[in-house]
């Protein structure tokens, strides 16, 4: 499934890209340096915008030809119309939001479909860390508890519940290993990254 064209793309992004239909209108929330949008534009003929709050990666987006809007996701989505996008991506960004529910509702408003990923707090090394009395520090959660941009910690089941509440139905849910390969056996335990493909109900 992961073809040569994905070579430059981070493993989890490469996996997620195959869920985006060619030619889609895409909004990538927390687009970083625009790698995903560039891939979607060049190889899948998608169009759309990235939203990124951090200064540093903006010039890279520009060089890549990605339309990027520097905004806080939590206040900046008002500029997008209802149902303006086929797919809204929110990859490894939701856990940094203060008001996750409001952001998810906004995603539901502006998009038809959404792909959301976040670190799976129920990944087994995290469970062991907690059992031994410490907050987990891992590849997917690499920060100490007192110095982390992550504000929210959720498991796959937790997220399913919230998605349902804001009007999204789960089309697919996959948990990925650190190297981006999907896990079928005990995904709630063995995956470090939870990835949901959702559709407006």
């Amino acid at each position, binding site marked *: 499934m992961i073809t040569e064209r994905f070579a430059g793309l981070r493993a989890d992004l490469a996996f997620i890209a195959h869920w985006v239909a060619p030619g889609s209108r895409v909004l990538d929330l927390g687009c970083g340096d625009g790698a995903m949008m560039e891939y979607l534009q060049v190889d899948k003929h998608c*169009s759309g*915008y990235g939203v990124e709050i951090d*200064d540093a990666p*903006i*010039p*890279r*987006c*520009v*060089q890549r*030809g990605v*339309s*990027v*809007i*520097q*905004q806080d996701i939590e206040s*900046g989505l*008002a*500029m*997008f*119309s209802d149902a*303006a996008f086929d797919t809204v991506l929110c990859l490894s960004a939701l856990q940094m939001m203060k008001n996750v529910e409001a952001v998810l509702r906004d995603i539901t408003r502006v998009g038809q479909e959404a792909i959301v990923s976040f670190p799976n707090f129920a990944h087994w090394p995290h469970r062991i860390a907690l059992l031994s009395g410490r907050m987990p520090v891992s590849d997917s959660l690499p920060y100490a508890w007192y110095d982390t941009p992550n504000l929210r910690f959720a498991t796959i089941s937790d997220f399913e519940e919230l998605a349902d509440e804001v009007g999204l139905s789960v089309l697919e849910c996959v948990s990925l290993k650190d190297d981006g390969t999907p896990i079928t056996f005990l995904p709630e335990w063995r995956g470090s990254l939870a990835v949901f493909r959702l559709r407006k109900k």
Partner: protein
Amino acid sequence: MHFAEPLALQSGALLADYTLVYETYGQLNADKSNAVLVCHALNASHHVAGVYEGQPKNVGWWDNMVGPGKPLDTDRFFVIGVNNPGSCFGSTGPMHTNPATGKPYGASFPVVTVEDWVHAQARLADALGIRQFAAVMGGSLGGMQALSWTMLYPDRIANCLVIASTPKLTAQNIAFNDVARQAILTDPDFHDGDYYAHGVVPRNGLRVARMIGHITYLSDDDMAEKFGRDLRGTDYQFGYGIDFEIESYLRYQGDKFSEYFDANTYLLITKALDYFDPARAFNGDLAAALANTQAEFLLVSFTTDWRFAPERSREMVQALVRNDRRLTYAEIDAPHGHDAFLLDDPRYMNVVGAYYEKIWGRITGRQNDSHRKAA
């Protein structure tokens, strides 16, 4: 450059027989695809970059942005700075002779708008043989001109760079402009704009206009950090001279400005600012006003700019997004208020540099393509 054909203005008036002063930097390439027009704001001119021979202190107003190896790299691009009509830096303005009367225009110089300036700039482009600009760029009032280009000449501008600007002034902005105008208009030396004939200049009015303008270009924090409540002397003077450093600074800025700037020009340019509102003809719908644009956009705003606040840039972004335009919007968290657009900030410079890098890639890519086709 002299233009004999009158320019029809938005007001209905005609500007007969006028001259535009301009400067260029870099080389126009063979297919004339690397031209960039830089539009000036209130108190600037065609002297965008570099210094004149023998005048090392007269540095171009955007010299940190434009020049060899700078974000707008004149080793690659052919950059044009043009002085707008009505200004006081060489192009036809109120201090020049009105051919109809043989006297200086003074206050009878027709009120010009941003759109009028853009039409004048387009004529200059025609004369220079430039059909399409690789980019038109401006900050503040200059950004309004760049934006206006995309609406008036959609196929003649490939990229539009709008820095610290707005699609229209707010009531507060117009209010500041009118205070400035009143200061000039009520100066006894104004003589209804014909002060040239009286051999005087409404210096006090200009000073006050500049002082109030200058306050709005800085942020509260920036002013607090630069000046605080620092005293000029050691103690209060208990009078109306200069007590505080900020007073000294503003008065100095006002004095300096009143020596080189023309009062009628100040009136004209603040009116051009006030009138700019391209959405007005579309019932306030900016997205509709921008529907025919073809350019790609870079918009930059600065978080502490309360004169042309980030909200105003976001309005433009939203209107462009509604039209599916390709754009980059950078909101730079800089402390210097509106003035930030003229200052060095690596984040700001990097994003503008990256944008021109992209434009350059397109130009050279296209040349390579056409070479390939020719081969």
